[in-house]
């Protein structure tokens, strides 16, 4: 395999991972539409969902171009089965209560924020352009969920407990965000993507800073579940895709 082909293949894999993670989280958030705890929050969550789906479209469109088989963003979103989804398993976890949703959002957004910031220096022009576009939105998301965790953690006994439970329950899915695929090494050498260890350190610092302020304890390391990028998912993703893909599966090629 020539170098260019190997780079393309690795990049395709990387883009699907990013595209799928944003898409699945965006879909999860959209489940809050009409169910938000207050009107403003209902609107905020759906705004963030739209941004995530927008970012996902950019990644998947580029993935389709690299793949060169004529697949559009929609083909990639609606016609791949669960084993071919590469999203990190954190984002497919159920919404649970509001504290759980905000904690999941925060753990992913802190990661996404640092990754996009690093991608601003990518040698790949398209990846850089996507990062430049979405990091501004991600900054607002990070601010928003951090604010909530601080309010919930420092709120009542009940809200504090739920917030602590949320991080305790979700912690086992966090390592999976930092899993590297075999081809990533090549992308790092080409300075297309950053070293994942660096992003992990930055993420860890942000998580500690916000959770400290929220008076929430950062969980101890214990069993970590991994495999999202390899297509190994928890049972929740299948149900999510069944709903999200229903129209295109039942009525192939249906358009608005």
């Amino acid at each position, binding site marked *: 395999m020539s170098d260019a082909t190997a780079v393309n293949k690795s990049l395709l894999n990387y883009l699907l991972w990013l595209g799928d993670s944003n898409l699945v989280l*965006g879909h999860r958030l959209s489940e809050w539409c009409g169910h938000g705890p207050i009107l*403003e*929050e209902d*609107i*905020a969550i759906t*705004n*963030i*969902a*739209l*941004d*995530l*789906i*927008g*970012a996902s*479209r*950019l990644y998947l469109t580029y993935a389709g171009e690299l793949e060169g088989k004529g697949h559009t963003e929609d083909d990639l979103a609606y016609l791949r089965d669960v084993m071919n989804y590469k999203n990190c398993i954190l984002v497919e976890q159920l919404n649970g209560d509001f504290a759980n949703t905000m904690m999941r959002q925060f753990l992913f957004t802190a990661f996404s924020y640092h990754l996009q910031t690093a991608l601003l220096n990518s040698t790949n*022009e398209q990846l*850089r*352009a*996507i990062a*430049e*576009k*979405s990091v*501004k*939105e991600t*900054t*607002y998301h*990070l*601010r*928003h969920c*951090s604010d909530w965790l601080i309010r919930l953690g420092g709120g009542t006994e009940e809200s504090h407990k739920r917030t602590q439970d949320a991080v305790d329950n979700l912690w086992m899915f966090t390592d999976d965000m930092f899993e590297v695929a075999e081809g990533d090494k090549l992308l790092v050498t080409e300075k297309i993507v950053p070293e994942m260890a660096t992003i992990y350190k930055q993420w860890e610092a942000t998580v500690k800073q916000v959770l400290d302020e929220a008076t929430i304890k950062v969980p101890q390391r214990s069993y970590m579940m991994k495999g999202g990028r390899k297509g190994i998912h928890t049972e929740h993703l299948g149900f999510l895709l069944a709903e999200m893909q229903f129209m295109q599966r039942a009525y192939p090629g249906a358009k608005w």
Partner: protein
Amino acid sequence: METREQIFDYLQEVFDPEVPVLSVVDLGIIRKVEVDAEGTHITITPTYTGCPAMNVIEEDIRAKLTEKGINNFDIKTILSPAWTTDWISDEGKRKLKEYGIAPPERSSPDKSLLSNHIKTIKCPRCGSTDTEMRSFFGSTACKALYVCHACKEPFDYFKCL
């Protein structure tokens, strides 16, 4: 054949479907207009990645140019440089305020946003600075929700991006 300036004039008649006082030119999403022997080439950039109005805006531009008798054109979307509220024209900012939306106060969000720095926003109705942010996310992706304590009215703020 139309000149570049004429094309810009036509585009002044295409309005943002969500903020209908702003033309696509005021909004700063028209990045380039070129007219050459092959036709008219227009380059636009999205405001927000997930902005549902972008498809509508592109369709509206097509419809407007067709209405003006221009058939030979193409519209290209670029992501970089990323759109910023700094590109909203002064005229656009004035129109926003008149419409009751507080215009963006400073440029792109940066680290200061993460460290509790929220700028005071003037109420577009009464001009008071006794206002409070209720939510970073308003009725559309581009707006935040504020309330004015002086006139007791809620208002939209076109947040910086």
